[in-house]
C-alpha cells in the first residue's frame, strides 16, 4: 500500500527555499521613490561603483603582491617573539594562572601554526610562485619552531620539564629485601 502523495508545501516553505532573486548590485536604475534601502547598501553601491573603474592587475604584479604578503605571514610569528620573551621573563618562574596561560599560548600558537602551514599559504598558491613559496613555508616553519623553543625555554625555567632525576623518582622502586627479621623485644 503506497502512502498518499505529500501535500503541497505551504507558501512560506516555498518562499523560504526560493527567496526572491538578489538585487543586481551594479544597476543604474534608481530606486523607486519611497524605497528605504539600508545605508550600508548605499555605501556598498558607491564603493563597488568605484572599483569598477580600476583596471584588474596583471598576473605578475599579483604574484609579486602575493609573495610579499606570504613573506609577511611567514615572518609574523617571529615579530611577536621579543614581546613574548619579555613578558615571559617578567612573569617569573612561579606557577600562576598568568604564567600558565602564557605558557599554554606559547605552545598553542606555534603548534597550530605548524599544523596549518599549508592552509596559511593556500591563498597565495599560484602556478608561478610554487618554488618561491616553498622557501617561504620553510622560513615559516623555522619561525614557528623558534616560537616553540621559547615556550620550551619558559617551561624549563618553570621546572616543568622532566629532565632531572627527581622527575623520574616516582617510577623508581625501593629494593626488595630478600630476608626478613622479626625483633622480639
Amino acid at each position: 500500500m503506497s502512502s498518499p502523495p505529500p501535500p503541497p508545501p505551504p507558501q512560506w516553505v516555498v518562499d523560504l527555499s526560493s527567496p526572491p532573486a538578489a538585487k543586481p548590485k551594479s544597476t543604474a536604475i534608481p530606486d523607486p521613490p519611497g524605497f528605504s534601502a539600508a545605508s550600508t547598501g548605499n555605501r556598498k553601491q558607491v564603493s563597488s561603483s568605484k572599483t569598477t573603474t580600476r583596471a584588474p592587475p596583471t598576473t605578475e604584479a599579483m604574484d609579486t603582491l602575493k609573495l610579499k604578503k606570504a613573506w609577511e605571514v611567514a615572518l609574523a610569528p617571529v615579530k611577536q617573539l621579543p614581546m613574548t620573551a619579555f613578558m615571559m621573563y617578567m612573569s617569573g618562574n612561579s606557577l600562576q594562572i598568568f604564567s600558565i596561560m602564557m605558557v599554554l599560548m606559547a605552545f598553542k600558537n606555534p603548534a597550530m601554526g605548524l599544523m596549518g602551514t599549508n592552509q596559511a599559504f593556500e591563498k597565495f598558491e599560484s602556478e608561478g610562485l610554487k618554488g618561491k613559496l616553498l622557501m617561504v613555508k620553510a622560513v615559516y616553519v623555522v619561525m614557528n619552531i623558534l616560537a616553540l623553543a621559547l615556550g620550551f625555554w619558559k617551561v624549563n625555567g618553570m621546572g616543568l620539564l622532566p629532565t632531572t632525576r627527581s622527575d623520574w623518582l616516582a617510577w623508581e622502586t625501593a629494593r626488595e629485601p630478600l630476608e626478613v627479621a622479626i625483633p622480639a623485644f
Partner: protein
Amino acid sequence: MRLPINLLCLALSVLPCALAVYADEAYNVDYHHELLGLPQPHTTFFHRPRQHDKATLLYTLSDLGVLGAVNPGTGKVVWRQFLADNDTASPAGFLRPVEGEGAVVSAVQNRVDCWDAMSGREKWGNVFAGQVKDLEVMEHAAADETKDVLALFEDDGKAHLRRLKGANGDVAWAYKDGSEDIPLQVSTNIREVFIVSLHGSWGGYNLKITILDPVTGKKTNEYTLSTKTDIHSPDDVLLVGANSASPIVSWTDKAMKHLKVNILGRSGDIQSLPLKESDGEIVKVMLHAPHLVQSLPHFGVHSQSAVSNRADVYHINLASGKIEKEYELPKLPGPGAISVGCSNANVYFTRLTEDEVILVSTASHGILGRWPVTIDTPHGSLIHGVSEVVQKATDVYAVRSAVVTDTEEWVLVRNGNEAWSRPEGLSGAIAAIWAEIPESKSLAKSLEVEAHSNPFRPERFLSSILPQPTSHTTGSLSKDGFGFSKVVIVATQRGRVYGLDTGNHGSVIWSLQAFNLPAGKKWNVKGIWVDNSRGTATIRGSEGEYVLLQTATGDNVETMPPGSSPPVTSTAIVDGPSGKWLLPIGVDGNPGEVPKDWVPNEILIVQSADGEIRGLKFETKGLDTKLIVAWTFHTGIGQKITSIVSRPTHDPVASIGRVLGDRTVLYKYLNPNIVLVTAVSDISSTASFYLLDSVSGSILYTTTHTGVDTAQPVTSALTENWFAYSLWSDVLSTSASMTAAKGYQILIFELYESAIPNDRGPLGATDNSSSLEPSEVPNAEPALPHVISQTFLIPQAISHMSVTSTRQGITTRQLLCYLPSSNSIVGIPRALLDPRRPVDRDPTTLEQEEGLFRYQPLIEFDPKMSITHAREVYGIKDVITSPALLESTSLVLAYGVDIFGTRVSPSMAFDILGKGFNKLSLVATVVALGVGVAVLAPMVRKKQINGRWMTS
C-alpha cells in the same frame, strides 16, 4: 598510581607544618581519662578545704602514688599531684587531713609534703633518709596554732620518729629508737605519742609500744605485748587507731575466733573480743574507728565470710579502759562495705551492700536512714568506701559514700543513688594496642542505620551539610568513613583489660578481669597482638599466662592461668605456614619447641639472659626443626643494653628519595631490617647507640656519648630512614671549634644510600637487596648508609618517643615526645629536626626551596607544639599511633596513669574539610546559581529568538 602520590608528596613539602591544635579541635578530637588510681582505704577521706565552708572535697592517695582531690558532686578532679616519680615498687603512701586548717599532708617513700587542700599547691616539703612508715597529724590543745605532723621512718632498720612543724615542715624534735625493731605505726592522743613496732624475728613478733612525750620527744615509757603466736608479719596487725580519744591496737588470733585489743598506754591489758561466725569461716576482719579526737571512742568490727558479712559495735569506757559491746549489725548476704563518718562527737557507720544503704549511729542501734541502692550499671560488689554524714534535721540525715567496687570503679552513692562513677581501674595501663572494629559487626550496624534513615529525608541531607561533631554519640561501636573509630585494648597492671572506643571519646566499651593478682603484684604483660581478621586479641604475661578475647565485645575466649606454661621474656609476631601468630620467647631468648606447622620463616632477634642480642633462624629438616644462632651482638665492656627499637610494623615510605633544591635526589637508606640498640654504662657515664642490620648482625652505624647522666631518661625512635634519641649529657669543649654543651639533647640521624646525589650507593640499581650477600663478590662488606646527623638542645627531659604513622606514609612524620616534667606530649615537626639545616649561615635559594632554614641549637618546646594543649597527662609509659583512613591523620593514644587520645595531622588536614569550611554557603551559592540559570535561561533564549526574528 605512583605518580599522584609523589606529586602529593611534592605538594605536601610546600605546605607549612601544622604546629598548633586548633581551638575548635581542642577538647573535641581529643579525650582524656584523668585518673588517680585505685583509692586506698586508709588514704581516702572527705575533708573541708576551707575551714568555714561546709563544702567538702574527696581526697585520696592512690595505689599509683597519685594524690588528688575530687569534687564529690560531679566526680571531676579538682587537682592532682603525682608523687611517685620513679616507678620502683608500689609506693605505700600516707595521706592525712589537717582538720580545720585546709591542708592535707602526704608521705610517700622518703618525703613528707603538705598541700593546700583547695588549690593543691605545695605548702612545704621535706625529704629524709629511709622509708616512711606512718604519718599522723598531732592535735593541739591550743586551737590557734598550726598542727604539727608526726612522721615515722624506717632508716637502716631502726625507727626514726620526727615531729615536723606544721607551718614550715622543719623538724621540731626527732626520736631515734636504738633497737632493731620493725617500726609499724605511730599514734597519738593529745597527751602522749605512741610508736607501735614489731619486736622479734621472722616467725613471730611481739608488739612493742614506746610512749613519748609530745613536747620534748623523750621516751617516757615502753611496754611489750606478747603476741608471738598471732602476729607473723606487719599485715597481721589490723588497726592502730589513729587520732582518737583512745587509740587502740588490735589483731586477731590465728583461727580468727577472737579479736585482741589493747588500748594504747595501758600496758599488759589485752582484751579479747569474740568474733561470731556467720555462714562459714571468717575470711576478713576490718576495724572501723573515728579519726577525730573529739569523737566518741567507739569502734566497729566488720567481719566477712565468703558469702555474708556482719558487724559489731563496741564502746570504750575512757575511765576504766573497758571495752563493751554495744550492739551488732545483723548478717547480710554478700560482701558489704562499712564506712565511718564523724561529725563532731557523733560517729556514724554507713553500711553499704549492693542493694541497700543503712546509716546507724554508734550510740544506739536504731537505724537513722535506709535507702535502696539504684545504680545505673552493675559495678560488682563493693570493697571499701568512705562516707560523709550530714544531719539535716533531728531525724533527717543525708549520706554520701565513695565506694571502690569489684570492677575497680570508684562510685559515689548519694542517699542510695549513684551520683557518678570513675573508671579508676583504667589507670596504671602497661600495654595497649589498636584493633579495627570487626567488619561483620560494623557492616551489620551500618546497614541497620541505613535501614532506619531514608536517604531522601531532609535531616539526613542537612546532616551532611551542617557542621557536625565527627564522633558518633549513639554509644554503639561502628566504623566511620575516615577511620577515626577504632578499638584500643588496654591492659592494666592490676590484671584488667579494657576496650576503648576512640570514635566515641575513648569511652570504655567493655572491661574484663583477666587475672586475679595477689595484692601488691603487678601484671607484667610481655606481648599483645590483635588478629583483625578474626577480631581477637591475645595478651601474654611474663609467667606464661595468656588471655584470648574478642576485641569488639571483650568476651573471654580462652584463658591460661599463670604458671601453666614456661615463663615468657618477650614475644614476636611471626609468620608461619599456618598464618601469623604471637610466638612467646622464653628465658635466655629461647623460643622453645615450635610445632612444625607454626615454624616462623623469618629470622628472630632475641635478647639472651646475659644481655647479648642474637639472631635466630629455624631450619626445618624433614620433621624436626632446628634452631640456629645466625649472629650475636655484644655491647662494649661495662655497658648494658637498655632498649632496642625497630621500625614500626606499619611503616610505609611514599618516596624513596629526598629531592634537593637543585632537583637531584638523595636516595634514602630503606632497610626494613634494622634495629637501634641503646647501651649505657653507669660507671663510665657513657651511652652508645648501635644501628644493626638484624639479618646479618653487622653494625651499620654507631655513636657514643660521654658525660651522660644515665639516671636521666635515654629514649630513642626509629622509622623510615631516620632515627632520633634524647639524653642528658655534659659535653666538654675539646677543641676551639667545638663548644661545650650541658643539658638535655635530642639527636637526629638520617640515613642515605650515598653521599652523592643521584647515586644509589654501592648496591647500584639492583631490585633486590640481601643483607647476607650484599653483592656478587663473595664476603663483600655490607652496604653502609651515609649518615647525616645534627644535635639540638631541648629544655626538658623526654621520657618516651614515638612517631606518627599514616596510611601511605606521604604525610611527614612527627616525633611525639612525652615530657614528664610538664606532663605533656609535644609533637616535634620533622622540618625542625632536619639535620641538613645550614649551620651558621642563612640558607641559599636552593636550600630555601627545599624547606630548610637556619640551624638554631635550641628547640624550645613551644606550647603550640603540645598536642595535649591545656591538659595534663600523668605518668605516660608509652604512646602508640595508628593510621586512619585519611592519609593526613594519625591516631595517637598515650597510656600510663592517664589515658589520653587524639588525632594529629603533621602536614595539616589536607584531605578533609575543616570545621571552618562553610558547607552551607557553598550549597547556598550553588542553589542560587541554579535558580539564576533557571530564571535567566528562558529570558535569554527568548531574547535570542527575538533578535533573529525581529528586525527592528
